[in-house]
């Protein structure tokens, strides 16, 4: 399990910076109160939050740097990926690819039931289930969604 905080620290530093840029430069939101009425602008709270995220992100990155140099600050350590871990990461990518393709296909074709059926087949194939099970599962879950949501609740799955 990766516990080194450099990557997440850098992520949040950039995230904080991104939102600060959006608030100050792009949307040019009003931050401070323009008069003695005490009414702070729409940008006040987001600005404070983004600034805090940016500062804490830097803190986390520094924590990660110290971890890397082996200083006694945190107990994190990066674990080398073993073959099973590599297989798991590959499975994640394939899972996400299937998920993304399913959503794109649904958006383009508007055929949710068909896309769900094919997605169910793909996911079970990915996890090496037997073909009888794959087909039975795909039919059952698609039928369940159709009967309960499309027919029962009249949900129109139009993306």
């Amino acid at each position, binding site marked *: 399990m990766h*516990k080194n905080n450099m990557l997440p620290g850098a992520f949040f530093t950039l995230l904080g910076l991104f939102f600060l840029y959006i608030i100050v430069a792009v949307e040019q939101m009003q931050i401070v109160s323009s008069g003695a009425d005490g009414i702070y602008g729409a940008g006040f709270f*987001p600005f404070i939050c983004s600034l805090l995220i940016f500062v804490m992100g830097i803190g*986390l990155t520094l924590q990660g740097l110290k971890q890397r140099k082996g200083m006694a600050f945190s107990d994190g350590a990066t674990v080398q990926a073993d073959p*099973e871990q590599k297989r798991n990461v590959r499975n994640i990518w394939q899972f996400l690819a299937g998920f993304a393709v399913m959503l794109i296909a649904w958006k383009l074709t508007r055929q949710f039931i068909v896309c769900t059926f094919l997605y169910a087949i793909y996911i079970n194939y990915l996890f090496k289930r037997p073909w009888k099970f794959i087909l039975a599962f795909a039919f059952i879950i698609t039928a369940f969604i159709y009967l309960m949501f499309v027919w029962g609740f009249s949900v129109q799955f139009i*993306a």
Partner: protein
Amino acid sequence: MTAEVWISAFQDLLRFDVMFYLFIGILLGTVIGALPGLSATMGVAIITPITFWLDKTVGLAMIMGLWNAAVFAGGITAILINTPGTPASITQAFDGYPLAKQGKGGLALGINVLYSFLGGMVSIILLILFAQPIAKFTISFTSPEYFMIALFGLSMMVAVSGDNILKGMILGVFGILLSTIGIDPISGARRMTFNYTNLNAGIDFIPVMIGLFGLAEILHQIYAHNQENALKEKALRSENLKLGRILPSFKQMKELTPRCLLVSFVATIIGAIPAAGGDISAIICWGNSKKFSKKSEEYGHGSVEGLAVSSTANNGVIGGAMCTMLTLGLPGDSVTAILLGSLMMYGLTPGYTMFTENAGFTSQIFILMIFANIGFLILGLATAKASAKVLNVNQQTVWACVSILCIVGTFCINNRFSDVIIMAAMGLLGLFFKIYDFPTGPLVLGLLLGSTMEKSMRRALVVSHGDFFYFFQRPISCVLFVVVILTLFAPIILKIKRKKLPLSN
């Protein structure tokens, strides 16, 4: 709440559809709680959008049934295969599994059902007795107090978020930042919508929950899957364990009940603390019960007392968590965080109005919780041995089912594809957070409480003409601020002191 309100609420609930969906909820909760990898939070998160298509009372019945049953059912796998079905069942594995190995699996399952019921019922009774007086206290609250209450809730969540408080704080603030996306409620300006009209109303809470607790959990299980452990679990499941009798003897019940009654009280109080859920309650109660027990050497080696205490403690938080949520608008645990979001979607605001204008609905909630407890007691005892069959479901099947239900459940909220995209994005972020040990609780709470915090803060500043010291001039607000500071910084100071101790020695 008067007797007429209670009687009217009770009569409204005696309908076939309410009882039917309550039973469905209990059944689903038993399955979800028993399956390792699925939790009560995930189950409630996925089922909640579906309940919006049902009558309000019927939907609530289903959620209550699922929640109460899932918490108790997490003990089934903890007892039979040493794998807690939900985080709150961790301590049930300490004594339940050794009992199962001794051939007393049936007794362990029976104790789990009975004492989960006891914990749940006592906490609901305490909820009914104390919720209204606590809510009445909040009548005097104005904007500064609401801001500080929200900050207090967030600080508690951060403080219990594990070793790295900085990670908890970052996610808490990130959650608050996400809550500011959309149209500013005071000035009407668009904030960070990137010209997408769907973002004008802000980021919906339910897709975030489903993404973080549903999809992210599945992705993480795929990521952390260990074939060797999976085969060991499969071998344990197929092992022919003699479950034996289910019900404990009258003598055993007489010995266990007084202690468990006390544990119920303690668990309810722990549940009322924001962010302290069943897992924290079970660990605290089990540890302290062991300290004060005459048979402490049996704890961890098949102690019936230890199992009874654990079972009582994890269901005992339910009433406390609901109390804090209904009265202060602060979720006591992750499930009540989802319920809070659901109440807001129904147009209800936690606080004293829940016991005045919405007294009927609130009393229905309480009665449904009682029915749910009775329901899982009957179902649990009747199907204790059969419920073990649930363990035969393959983990990959669960992954496929949940990933599809996450899409379906998310789309059902508002019939918007953008919600599904948000859910998927949060699922990816949730995986990232889990890999790098970020607690997701603060993010959820920040998203929920962010708008309350901002509105309260800006209103208070309008009243005080921009003077921030106004927050410290009001006694309750000032006290809460001190508690927030202590909650956030005391663990850091203690940690630094502990690190210095070996050096000074």
